């Protein structure tokens, strides 16, 4: 009988350094192709047995039929191990877990604003590339993305060569402080939201990033006219099972692994502020 706690083994066929502490791992089934299908915003449990297991967003789009990708920030046991290994190594993967962004219902036909900080772009990248591959189903797209420095912008090459060249895609990059070789915008993401001139009508905003960025960006999105029912985010709590059983990741009566990680801000208001 099926058991979701038992993972699949996948081969890491390509490792790309994104920033000094983020690498992207391409994972394929041993027989080639993807280990399983997913929807944008869903996650998977990656593991190296004997090291540990960690929940990671699937950053590739479901429209990619060849492989899955995960971008991992080096911060501990598993992530440190992954950063040290070579291509060709097997890892284990189980999932997909969680409720995705509602790309085919609430978001369909809308203009989209993506607000991201640092590695927070990882879960949004899945949506962004899904939108690029279904371009006629969505309206104007604005991407506001910031990091500490130019070197900390993940997917920089893809952003410049692909996203910036997609029709009606408007990419607004920013870094925290002036830097040699950077002639783009300088400043924090929350402030930039007010400056780029967003139109909230028939628009949804999807926001992921460090808690401090979310905290200051939300009021600014509201200030430029968005309602909480138009703004989505993903939550990050400590996880073990990924299926609402180990009892670890709840906010009030919702399990982030199962009922999230994607939440709308009006839904979050219904929950205790314990996150």
């Amino acid at each position, binding site marked *: 009988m099926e*058991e979701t706690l038992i993972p699949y083994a996948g081969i890491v066929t390509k490792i790309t350094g994104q920033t000094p502490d983020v690498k992207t791992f391409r994972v394929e089934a041993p027989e080639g192709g993807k280990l399983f299908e997913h929807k944008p915003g869903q996650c998977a449990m990656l593991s190296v047995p004997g090291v540990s297991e960690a929940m990671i967003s699937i950053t590739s789009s479901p429209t990619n039929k060849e492989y899955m990708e995960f971008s991992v920030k080096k911060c501990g046991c598993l992530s440190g191990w992954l950063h040290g290994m070579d291509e060709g190594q097997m890892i284990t993967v189980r999932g997909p877990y969680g409720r995705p962004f509602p790309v085919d219902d609430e978001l369909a036909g809308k203009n989209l604003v993506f607000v991201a900080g640092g590695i927070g772009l990882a879960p949004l990248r899945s949506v962004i590339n899904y939108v690029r591959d279904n371009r006629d189903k969505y309206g104007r797209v604005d991407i506001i993305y910031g990091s500490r420095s130019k070197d900390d912008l993940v997917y920089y090459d893809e952003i410049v060569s692909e996203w910036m060249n997609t029709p009606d895609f408007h990419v607004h990059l920013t870094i925290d402080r002036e830097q040699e070789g950077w002639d783009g915008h300088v400043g924090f993401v929350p402030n930039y939201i007010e400056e780029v001139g967003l139109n909230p009508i028939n628009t949804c905003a999807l926001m992921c990033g460090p808690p401090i960025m979310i905290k200051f960006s939300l009021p600014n999105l509201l200030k430029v006219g968005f309602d909480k029912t138009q703004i989505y985010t993903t939550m990050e709590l400590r996880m073990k099972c990924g299926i609402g059983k180990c*009892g670890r990741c709840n906010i009030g009566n919702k399990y982030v692994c199962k009922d999230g990680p994607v939440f709308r801000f009006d839904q979050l208001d219904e929950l*205790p502020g314990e996150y």
Partner: protein
Amino acid sequence: MKKLSLAKLYDFFAAIAAKEALYLPVNNEVGKAEYKRWSEGVELSHQLNTLRSAKDFFFPQTENLMEFKMEGKKIDIIDTREACDDFVIFGVRACDAASFDILDRVYLVDPVDSYYKNRREHGTVITHACGKPAETCFCGTFGIDAADPKGDITVWDVEDGYVFRANTEKGEKLMAATADLFEDTDDKAVKAEQDKVREILAKMPLADLTTEGVGAGLTKEVFDRPEWASLSESCLGCGTCTFVCPTCQCYDIRDFDTGHGIQRFRCWDSCMYSDFTKMSAGQPRPTQLERFRQRFMHKLVYFPDNNDGVFGCVGCGRCLSRCPISMNIVKVMKTLAKGGNK
């Protein structure tokens, strides 16, 4: 209903044990009841309930989930699951029997936990109606009837023996297999026993405990109650209350290097521990207040929210007798019921 004479109880045990493992409450060296496997000469305990709950049978404290063989860059995943042997538990009280229903609501909903399901499918539960409820009992608060427990078979003590009632197909099967030990009876003696027990229950110190002030839909009202501070003030975060609790379900998953490969196992965990939710980016429950509140919010509000109003406590009273600082769910409920949420 069927009757088993006093003299035949151990014949019944022997008949079951001839075919499958039989577990029942047995007194340990210090006179406390624990579930033990029955064999010739082992005596059924007459204590009201076991020290540890019966959840171990279906959700053991640790269990192996799978194994891995690592060779160079290759990982082999070994599915170590196998169908568990049939077994019978005799003497489960009403509260613990009700706890199985609560665990089912966690582990048997999609995606089903196959480890738990395996044990549930192969276990037959024979419950034993309580004759002498204790002062710490309050199963009635949650609508559980100590005089009429659930389970595959229910057993009552009557004057000169035991009356059995099969409640499920599994129960029918087990009774059919031992049919020659039983004689037919009506429900008169059981009714009398139930009346007696219900009378005792009504006089118990916690008979008046209600679920006023807690339950589904009350997150906002209960979460911000100022009393959480004083209630949690002395909590040591030892986790004893979670480990003795028949309905506590939280677990951790860990790996162990056996020298021949990696074993992935799970073990009970506790929301009362500080590292339960600790993250590199922060800690959503930084002090014991939040952890303590989580345990009781889960049992009294969140669980009912997600489970048609069913509470996540069965009133077994174990946490009442075991907490080193004498804090417990009854004190929490009494405090929350004191109208402060208006």
